[in-house]
């Protein structure tokens, strides 16, 4: 069956005064209805660039290669009317930093109504009840529609953003760092709302975060990005608890399991910094920071190998079929 979201060999290159910056260097990703997929990675890895292509929101100086299909249609070659129908009607985004994404001088209810009325101007009569319905779906009382953004807390604003994303009944939701900057309890509430919606409405969810543990707990599958490519993918708990790629291992260890004695007074991290897309290391881009790098890692970029069914890994130390007995 054709997936809800199919990204094939995606490349995103930014043309700047300083040259070409390869932000995304060949990414394959699929999301089906009722599935929540996590995209993990740190700053500069290209995950936001990937997300921006799904609704064709990438900046004008970006060159796209490969294909991004939503519901079978190639987003990058859609005509204007097709794009309008796609945006919010079939796929919607929950942006990072709800604080700055909401218009401070407009009531929250009006902001949710905006996409509804844009897609269907005749819905004027029913829009109020739809707003109430949406707010209740995200766990807010319908009366909150009359509030201004500054009257809501951080968690409430993020939930309003989710309600806005659901406004036109999309099939796919892309959430870019939905819980960063939120308290851990509020984060739990927001993640609960998201997973509940995926179940209730059979949505497809692509969640982007640098917090691998959040993705591990909320998503069914997780893909880990480093320097523009996916270096590991697989079932969420598997990737988090039994990482195969050394980078995934480091990411996972950065959020220690409370109760794990070996993590006491032993914070684990990687030396150096996430690579600058303008100056990628040669060979395997991770080799300068890799704890188990070999001599030839600087020469060859490892191909993606299937360590097991649905478990691609891009590391020379992981053999094909390594997970199979």
């Amino acid at each position, binding site marked *: 069956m054709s997936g809800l979201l199919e990204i094939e060999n995606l490349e995103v290159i930014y043309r700047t005064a300083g040259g070409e910056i390869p932000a995304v260097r060949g990414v394959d990703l699929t999301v089906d209805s009722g599935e929540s997929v996590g995209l993990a990675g*740190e*700053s500069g890895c290209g995950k936001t660039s990937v997300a921006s292509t799904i609704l064709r929101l990438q900046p004008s100086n970006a060159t796209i290669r490969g294909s991004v299909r939503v519901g079978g249609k190639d987003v990058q070659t859609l005509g204007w009317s097709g794009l309008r129908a796609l945006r919010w009607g079939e796929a919607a985004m929950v942006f990072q930093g709800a604080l700055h994404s909401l218009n401070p001088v407009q009531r929250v209810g009006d902001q949710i109504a905006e996409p509804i009325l844009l897609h269907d101007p005749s819905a004027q009569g029913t829009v109020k009840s739809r707003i109430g319905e949406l707010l209740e779906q995200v766990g807010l009382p319908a009366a909150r529609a009359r509030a201004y953004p500054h009257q809501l*807390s*951080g*968690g*409430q604003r993020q939930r309003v953003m989710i309600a806005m994303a659901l406004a036109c009944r999309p099939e796919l939701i892309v959430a870019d760092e939905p819980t960063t900057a939120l*308290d*851990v*309890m*509020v*984060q*739990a*509430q927001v993640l*609960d709302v998201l997973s509940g919606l995926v179940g209730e409405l059979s949505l497809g969810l692509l969640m982007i975060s*640098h*917090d*691998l*543990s*959040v993705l*591990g*707990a*909320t998503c069914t599958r997780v893909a880990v990005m480093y320097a523009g490519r996916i270096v590991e993918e697989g079932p969420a*708990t598997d990737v988090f608890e039994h990482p195969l790629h050394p*980078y995934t291992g*480091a*990411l996972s*260890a*950065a*959020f*220690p*399991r*409370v*109760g*794990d004695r070996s*993590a*006491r*007074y*032993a*914070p*684990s*991290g*990687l*030396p150096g*910094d*996430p690579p600058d897309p303008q100056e990628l290391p040669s060979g395997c881009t991770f080799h300068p*920071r890799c704890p188990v790098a070999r001599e030839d890692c600087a020469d060859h970029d490892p191909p993606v190998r299937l360590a097991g069914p649905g478990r691609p890994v891009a590391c020379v130390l992981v053999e094909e079929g390594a997970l199979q007995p």
Partner: protein
Amino acid sequence: MTDPLLRIRDLAVEFSARGVVARAVDGVDLDIGAREIVALVGESGSGKTTLARTLLGLERPTAGGIEFDGSPLPTTVRRLRAYRRRVQLVLQDPTGSLNPRQTVYESVAEGIRIHRMVAKSDGATEIDLVARSLTRSGLRPPENFFLRYPHELSGGQRQRVVIAGAMALEPEVLIADEPVSSLDASIRGEILALLLRLRDEFGLTVLVVTHDLGLAWNIADRIAVMYLGRLVEHGPAERVLSDPQHPYTQALLSVVPEMHHIEPIVLTGETPDPTRIPGGCRFHPRCPALLDGRAEAAGIADVCGTKPMPVLDTARGAAAACWLANPSSS
């Protein structure tokens, strides 16, 4: 503990705006001993940042007192400056913490110049002191960083520069407010390891203010959990995180994403604000123990909502400010 370095007693810090009073810190007793790493855990609105800033003299206490090394916190400008040599600060956002128009050298040298450390050092020049500080923070070779501007550095490097600037004064206490929350995951470990190393090598005492229990597990000796201006739980890190007594700590721990084996207790409602503190136990409107009947079963349900909870006496080893956890005291 033998003669704590920092002694906080009955501390209260209030803010008033237009007649509305916010009791950000509403009665805290806490001791911090030398060479200890204490994690002050709480969410936004808990008052943890206000408490940290008051310890640095950036806020004035409304009531109660803080003693450092036996004497109360200074209030005059000159004594406050001397105090600041001994107690230093690392803020959350390394990008904002550095003046974009100053080079790394100037940022680190600032504290050295203010406190005239060159005169007090044994023959070392300003360059030597700056280089030493940068090296200790892991920026090697230091000369490479002297003339760089903050926007040319990565997030982790910026945080190291901030730490170097604080350590240049050779303080005894370092107060770190969310030191790694805005840094990439893969470099958090390095900064936390740096803090541990500074404690081991230079006898630094660290108070880490954070909402991240995983961080506390990584580096803290003791944990104090704050809710709405008061401490609700306190004790050795391993005890608090493996066997939390207070329902709030239990809930916080349960929603940490890695804790699969604990059923998450997601609290309803929002963190209430310090201008409207509930009566009785301040946590009672959201307390899972009250909502699921455990309090009722223990016969204390009515006490939770009415009897005011005393300040947690951490000096005497009290662990949790909860009637359910301490049945004898209700």
